[in-house]
């Protein structure tokens, strides 16, 4: 049976490329209102994009511009309606719902606020000690959770950003494991993940900084794995791991030696080359 299997991993993309993909390269604009204010965005943009374009703040946790929207945290819920819906409204996650012509969005209707409060209250019960969760909850008037506090508090809100960025980079070293309330982010078999390249993207993208790591010139440790660093031949700084260099070389078809130099020194080299070229003229 032929089913179409999607390609493993993905490539990194820049902002413009991502926006173009999301909007399908379309140039048509759509006009909508958000809390009564007019917003105009390209067709294919999301309601969240539109809100940000006019400076309306909608809280998010699991959304990140580098990644496809996921719709898991539910904080960005808004009420939407259209004139032809005769007053019927529906609650949607603004990070995924497409901005459409004539859409009227309420980012703080009574039921949106009530639902956001429940979500934050639940998150606070799960992660009572995470500063980000505490401050978001406080914004909605919640100082302590009304539910049972997690007997083993964690700072992980299960936003999935770490696993999603790892997939996006094309490594997929970690994943979410189990289901339901027992779900957690973990490496395979809860052991040091064999596919990890030590790039730290997961730790850096984590909104609550709950992925521990150590890094120095002497080495890097994350997820129980120890990595050796590559030193820049020009300045001696240890800037990436050996595994990163090998991985990037493998993806791009560029020799590993290219990655030995750190970004700063690469730029200096490039500048020298151009200077030399123009002098040669």
């Amino acid at each position, binding site marked *: *049976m032929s*089913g179409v*299997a*999607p390609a*493993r991993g993905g490539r990194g993309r820049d902002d413009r490329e991502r926006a173009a993909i999301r909007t399908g390269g379309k140039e048509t604009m759509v006009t909508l209102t958000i809390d009564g204010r007019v917003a105009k965005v390209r067709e294919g943009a999301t309601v969240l994009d539109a809100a940000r374009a006019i400076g309306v703040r909608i809280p998010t946790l699991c959304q990140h511009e580098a990644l496809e929207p996921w719709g898991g945290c539910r904080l960005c819920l808004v009420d939407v309606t259209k004139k032809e819906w005769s007053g019927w409204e529906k609650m949607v996650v603004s990070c995924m719902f497409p901005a459409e012509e004539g859409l009227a969005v309420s980012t703080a209707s009574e039921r949106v606020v009530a639902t956001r409060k429940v979500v934050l209250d639940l998150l606070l019960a799960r992660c009572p000690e995470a500063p980000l969760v505490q401050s978001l909850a406080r914004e909605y008037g919640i100082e302590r959770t009304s539910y049972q506090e997690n007997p083993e508090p964690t700072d992980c809100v299960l936003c999935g950003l770490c*696993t999603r960025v*790892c997939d996006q980079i094309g*490594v*997929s*070293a*970690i*994943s*979410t*494991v*189990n*289901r339901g309330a027992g779900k957690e982010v*973990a*490496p*395979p*078999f809860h*052991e040091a*993940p*064999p*596919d990890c390249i030590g790039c730290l993207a997961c730790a850096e993208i984590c909104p609550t900084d709950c992925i521990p790591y150590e890094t120095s010139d002497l080495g890097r440790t994350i997820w129980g794995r120890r990595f050796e660093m590559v030193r820049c031949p020009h300045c001696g700084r240890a800037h990436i791991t050996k595994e990163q260099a090998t991985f990037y070389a493998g993806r791009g078809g560029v020799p590993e030696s290219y990655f030995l130099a750190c970004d700063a020194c690469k730029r200096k080299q490039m500048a020298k080359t151009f200077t030399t070229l123009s002098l040669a003229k």
Partner: protein
Amino acid sequence: MNGQPCVNTAPLDEILARYPASETALIQVLQDVHRAYHYLPCDVLVKVAEVLDVPLAKVFSVGTFYKAFSLVPQGRTIVRVCTGTACHIRGANRLIEEIERLLKIKSGETTEDMGFTIKTVNCVGACAMAPVVIVGEQYHGSAQPAKVAKYLAETEAGHEN
């Protein structure tokens, strides 16, 4: 890996030969693996990841998401008690308690001699015969706690007990 002994990979090779080498076959492969080995051994999962070209993390994710799979060795006979609604209101709890009492383990656990594992199942679709206990492949409808000892004794593992 994981402190587990290496397993015989011959059954695995035979299973992998049956399916296309892609992600779509993953769950079917894992089910056949589970049937052959009575659980999902970790070195088997590593090989599955390799052959199907699926990241190991995703294989592990799938292996832990679905209830059909166990990552630790299970008993030779699985005792499944249905905990569907009809079975629940017709006394599934009492059945579970009786089985736990007789085997001296809790639901989800395996006896020391690896004879039995107790599992609960969220509905096997024999609701008109509630409550239902499945011992190995044998279905027992209108099951009664008083008869549990008999159901268990009818199995090989039961004879050894």
